[in-house]
């Protein structure tokens, strides 16, 4: 680096300007650091301290009705780790994350691919339309799905009206409803993540493959899909992470029958007031998050070459 910078100058000049550069760099670093302090302090107060408080809370002992005994026990961790019920809740949470992630990628991929390759002058507008649902709160969209999927909702009344079904389909208050809602709610995130991950996708490569005699299906399978894989994987991870931590949709569309880690944490916090246990469940969820992201990053790096 230094060699490059000093090329074409005399050694004396180089030494002098090098020191000057170092001093400037040092000064700049201090300014950057000073400018970073508000953000870092904000992060410390709003994220690091609460997180540390939560971790500490998870080692306390919870008693009925919200009494918290300040102590240091692993019981709060032992209970969910040794209880098959919580293993099932964890497994269900992950199953939901994977299903929603896969379906979301599946329905978002064609949209993202179209938007990424579009030459239309309306591309910006189309992109804005694709991500416009983000302007509405997830709560409102979840309520929208309740109206559509309910017993007397749009789908059931249409099917009943057409004489296709006699009894309404159970599309809500179960995992089906939650999955449908989550896939739609997370689609804009998946589309955005994919578009930003399609960097290496180039029409020239597809044309080259075509000129060498590859069929459209072959071009897609051998060129388009492999090159868009980083975008697909990023979108899947994003949707998976958002799904396993989401609370509103499983709560509203699950009708109390869908028990995932987030709803369990909510019940323990606000219904049963067992904060230490809720904190322990949150830490477990956080550790699982970390592990998955670490494994996933390795995988993505491997695939990305």
């Amino acid at each position, binding site marked *: 680096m230094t060699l490059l910078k000093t090329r074409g100058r005399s050694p004396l000049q180089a030494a002098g300007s090098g020191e000057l550069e170092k001093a400037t760099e040092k*000064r700049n670093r*201090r*300014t950057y*650091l*000073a*400018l970073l*302090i*508000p953000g870092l*302090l*904000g992060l410390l*107060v709003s994220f690091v301290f609460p997180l540390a408080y939560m971790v500490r809370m998870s080692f306390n002992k919870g008693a*009925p*009705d*919200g*009494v*918290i005994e300040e102590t240091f026990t692993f019981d709060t961790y032992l209970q969910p780790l040794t209880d098959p*019920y919580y293993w099932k809740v964890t497994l269900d949470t992950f199953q939901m994350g994977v299903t929603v992630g896969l379906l979301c990628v599946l329905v978002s991929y064609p949209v993202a691919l179209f938007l990424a390759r579009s030459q239309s002058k309306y591309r910006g507008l189309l992109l804005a339309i694709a991500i416009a649902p983000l302007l509405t709160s997830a709560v409102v969209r979840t*309520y929208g799905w*309740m109206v559509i999927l*309910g*017993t*007397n909702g749009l789908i059931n009344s249409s099917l009943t009206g057409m004489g296709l079904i006699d*009894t*309404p389909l*159970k599309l809500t*208050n*179960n*995992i089906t409803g939650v999955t449908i809602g989550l896939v739609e709610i997370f689609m804009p995130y998946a589309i955005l993540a994919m578009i930003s991950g399609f960097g290496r996708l180039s029409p020239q490569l597809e044309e080259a493959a075509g000129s060498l005699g590859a069929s459209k299906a072959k071009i897609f399978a051998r060129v388009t899909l492999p090159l868009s894989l980083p975008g697909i994987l990023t979108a899947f991870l994003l949707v998976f992470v958002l799904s396993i931590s989401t609370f509103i949709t499983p*709560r*509203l569309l*699950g*009708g*109390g*029958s*869908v*028990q995932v880690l987030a709803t369990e944490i909510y*019940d323990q*916090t*606000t*219904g*049963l*007031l*067992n904060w230490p246990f809720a904190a322990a469940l949150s830490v477990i969820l956080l550790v699982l998050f970390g592990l998955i992201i670490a494994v996933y990053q390795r995988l993505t790096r491997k695939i990305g070459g």
Partner: protein
Amino acid sequence: MKVTNKGKFAALAAISVSALVLTGCGGGSTPAANDSPDSGEVNLIAYSGVWQDQYTAAVIEPFKAKYPNIKINFSSKRSSAEMLSALQGQKNSPATDVAIMDNSVSTTGNKQGLFEKVDAAGVPNLANVPDDFKNKDGFGPVVMLDAVGLLYDTAAFPKAPDSWDVLWDPAYAGKINVNAPPSLLGLSLTAITSKMEGEDYTQGIDKAVARLKELAPAVQTFAPNPDEYQNVITGQTVLGLGQNARGQFYSDQSNKKMGVTFPKEGTVYQINTVNLVKDAPHAAAAKTFIDYSLSAEAQTAFAKALFYAPSVNNADLPADVKDRVVPTDGSLNIIPLDVDFLSSARDKWTDTWKREIITK
């Protein structure tokens, strides 16, 4: 040069820290200098939604007209448990003065030292509260009563069902909403079913669980949204569990599309107490408010607005309102739900519902 840089660094850091402190890292409660029985403010924590709207119109607004120098700040919560949680968080520097919450939860608050005792010296209207509705240790008294009712679609049931057994009728499978514990409605249904099965719920709920397991597949939702009343009104379900007071209110609102009834096997009271927070920053004004909440005027107004039964013996309700609030004269079959027992059973019953009763 170096000194200047260091100076800049220090100045920027100092600005950052002070900005952060100024923007809300301070915290702590401020002692109320202007607190007196007829001036200052009262920070009230109570239920949200229609309860808040009706209580504001029927009680808080007339209170403000009577005591123009007392300001009421209403902090609403969806449940008593959430209120308790907020009060626990403020234990070392209370910011709330008065809490209106469920009896089972306020009993816990009393045990945890979150509330202050009240007496007739500070709250003269306490004299009109019958002994049964006073706390035996002198803490906040009952301020209103209600009970769990059976909600029904009046189109499906021209005559109100008279037994809880209707929930198990296969004709209504898939058209029932039940709030699962920790909701008080779910806990109450557990106690009601236990009684129907001839069981003493304090000894065990095995028979009730077996019966509720039979009910579970017929339940459309265990967490009705937007709430249990709208589910029936909009025709999503035809039967449900709800509070009588809100049920009566929404029955009127929906032009009698939904009805609410007390089945013959009995029901469980839902009792709210009014509580003075320990070390409340505005204790003097708070006592004035508590006293007003126990006045015949406030109790009658709220009974007319939201059909809660008064807890004072000098409230005179019009006949059409009296017929619709929960009777407190012993004429209704009430299943006692012991609050001390409930505080220890809430966890277990919630767990049992999640593991054994609620089906996917």
